[in-house]
């Protein structure tokens, strides 16, 4: 369970998170929508401790992410994150990209890591690309590789930060299909996205962020068909 309690975070004078409260239970899919600069992406990087928070608390299965004694590296292997930019390791083949963290972080033997990597890459439809270097693949394929790379750590939670925003419109579908598949398998996910149709389809709950505040959170039917908050109404009107 991910518990976010009254989290505040500023970059200099700009307060990007103004007291966020959100609890995500095991197996739940929560999507976060909202305009640029609303703090959606920052929240994700706070959840896995890439960004410190100013106040409040984020706990993962009871472990306080931002407490002094927390082993962030251990914690991060439980929480996979995939970014807008896929960030392939360009000097490694697709297979090596996925094998690296299981070998070095989890300390798995080479065969075992390879087995897991092949399984995950097959899962996202890249079984044919094992020995290819990332730069020889399309953005969609690289993004799916990044997803497989995160999954190879057998995370309990997955965070997706606008994973289709940098993609060619033609390639968005294949990545969303991968996310749909994960959701249907019961993965606990928080997805920051601009894909409204996708959000409506996969989410258990949809949260709307506006200027660092979670203005509204509800079931997709409720939020998309009968938004309560005036900013949600404006945002949805503008994106349709």
């Amino acid at each position, binding site marked *: 369970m991910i518990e976010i309690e009254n989290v505040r975070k500023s970059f200099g004078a700009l307060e990007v998170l103004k007291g966020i409260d959100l609890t995500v239970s095991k197996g739940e899919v929560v999507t976060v929508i909202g305009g640029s600069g609303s703090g959606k992406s920052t929240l994700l990087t706070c959840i896995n401790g890439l960004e410190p928070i100013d106040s409040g608390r984020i706990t993962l299965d009871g472990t306080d992410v931002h407490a002094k004694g927390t082993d962030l590296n251990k914690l991060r292997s439980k929480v996979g994150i995939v970014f807008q930019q896929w960030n392939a*390791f*360009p000097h490694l083949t697709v297979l090596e990209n996925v094998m690296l*963290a299981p070998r070095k*972080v989890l300390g798995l033997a080479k065969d075992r890591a390879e087995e897991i990597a092949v399984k995950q890459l097959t899962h996202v439809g890249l079984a044919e690309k094992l020995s290819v*270097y990332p*730069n020889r693949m399309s953005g969609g394929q690289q993004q799916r590789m990044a997803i497989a790379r995160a999954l190879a750590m057998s995370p309990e939670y997955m965070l997706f930060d606008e994973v289709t925003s940098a993609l060619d419109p033609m390639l968005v579908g294949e990545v969303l299909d991968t996310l749909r598949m994960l959701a249907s398998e019961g993965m606990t996910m928080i997805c920051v996205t601009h894909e409204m149709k996708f959000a409506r389809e996969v989410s258990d709950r949809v949260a709307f962020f506006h200027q660092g505040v979670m203005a509204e959170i509800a079931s997709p039917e409720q939020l998309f068909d009968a938004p309560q908050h005036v900013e949600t109404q404006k945002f949805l009107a503008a994106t349709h």
Partner: protein
Amino acid sequence: MFETALTWSDLAFLAQGAGMTLLVTAVSVTAGTVLGVIFGVIRFQVGPYWSIPLTFVLDVFRSVPLLIQLVLGNAFQSIARLGWPPFTTSCVILSLYTAAYCTEIVRGGISSVPVTTRRAARSLGMTWWQDMRYIVAPLATRVSLPSWIGLTLGVMKDSALVLWLGLIELLRASQILVTRLQEPLFILMICGAIYFILSFPVARLGGYLEKRWSPND
């Protein structure tokens, strides 16, 4: 026909000088690179403000002519009664000189690795060290290699200046022969050819590595 007083033993003498050039270069480039990597990582990690003292010292080694550094370094070691032989003094000065340039090369290489790529590595649970070792080092090496090869070739030629401390390296050996045989053109041509033979494999190695790595980029 072409006639020369140069004998086989003179050529052996030149080869010995070349050996000294190689040895001084190898020691200095190795030590300078190790130091350069350490300083480069420090400079990158602590940021421009906290590395001001280090940067200042390295700037001194980059801006003062090497000849002056060698002469002053030698004077300093005798004042401080370190009792270093010329070979040690030469290697220490040349290493610091190399390190000063190498630091910038390393820092530039590390900066060239996108922050987002490093974030991805860290978010997979890799430690700072693992990120450095498996992601940053290989990527930064690719970017830095051409400059580092250039630096190595430069240091090999600059190492000729250690003759001022009395070391008989390739150039000094040639000078000795020129003084004795009075055939400057011929001997300096041989000397230049030897420098070329020493440098060529290093330059080719660089070309080879660049080519081998390029399909991945």
